[in-house]
């Protein structure tokens, strides 16, 4: 089952709208956040998520997710990394 889960790690300068931006993309792709930890340390925004996607087995789908997140990340000034849980 772990193969449909990914870890998403997000870092950037804090401002309103970062969580809204990233999680909207995830829920738009029908991803379900199972665990979330987010904190602001000296104006640095740090967030880690474990997200479960239905039917994420295909590499294409992971690529699509990564692309969309990267695009959003650029807009928001965030570094976003995605790791499939079964490859860690």
């Amino acid at each position, binding site marked *: 089952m772990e193969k449909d889960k990914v870890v998403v790690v997000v870092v950037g300068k804090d401002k*309103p*709208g970062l969580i*809204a931006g990233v999680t909207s993309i995830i829920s738009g792709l*029908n991803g379900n956040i*199972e*665990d*979330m*930890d987010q904190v*602001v340390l000296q104006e640095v925004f740090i967030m880690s998520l474990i997200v479960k996607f239905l039917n994420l087995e295909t590499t294409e789908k992971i690529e699509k997710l990564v692309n969309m997140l990267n695009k959003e990340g650029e807009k928001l000034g965030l570094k976003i990394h995605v790791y499939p849980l079964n490859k860690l």
Partner: protein
Amino acid sequence: MGNIIVTSIGRDRPGIVAGISNILYRHNANILKTRASILGGLFVMVMVVDISKVNIKLEDLISKLKEKGVELGSGISVEDEKTYRKKKKLVAFDLDGTLIQMETLDELAKAAGVYEEVKKITKMAMEGKMSFKEALARRVKLLKNLPVEEVEKLKRRIEFTPGVQDLVKELKKAGFVTAIITGGFDVFAKHVAEKLGIEYVYANRLIVRKGVLTGEFKGEIVSAQSKLKALTEIAKKEGISLSECVAVGDGANDVFILKSSGLGIGYKPKTVVKRHAKALINSEDLRTIMAFIGGGQIRKDVIKKLKE
């Protein structure tokens, strides 16, 4: 103004974090800290939110968040950080529609064959066209000559809201004082209190003579004010402040008690209650309340227990 704490507890589904955080973003609130997890099949999220630059009135932001919570089908609470951190020590419950799945006055009215008339008066009171006190007096009067056996029969038919036994057990184990404060009747409230192990009961008494109801009642719980007065009395006796109290209720006469206590929880609330309760729960299962009143760190520990 310090930070607010937004808690969302409910059935897990995609879009909860996005839904809540989008509202906060739209109104320029900044999320400082979030912790979310699935515990025992429930999605639990707690956010610490900086509201110093919010671009609408705080109360409007709060109602938008609560509306969203209801729309997402989760329980939601919005508290200021100071009250949130305050340890809660007492929980006061409404009876009908909260601890039990029944409106006892309606059931008595059915047994007496005056249900339609009672319903009309209830409606008038709900719409503010008649005071609670007068509405209660009129409805009880319609029950005149109902045999006491009918009351006893109803008592045996009472059904608890799912999870309520567990909830009260957990509360007692955690050291909470518990109370029932109801505009209903002590014959039912005491029975429920005894079954659940609840210490305080404030209710009204139906007067009985020669085995039938006389159509009169005795008691002071006849308005939203009097419910608050009862809670204040209990709190004073226990040596605790109202901000350390949790109130759970659903109806118009719960408005003051929900507004004035540290955490007011509207359980399947009627419209008027939604505005005044800090927390709204629509779930069938009362155990989610435990997660809301745990406060701070305990909130998490408490939810773990729900797994069992």
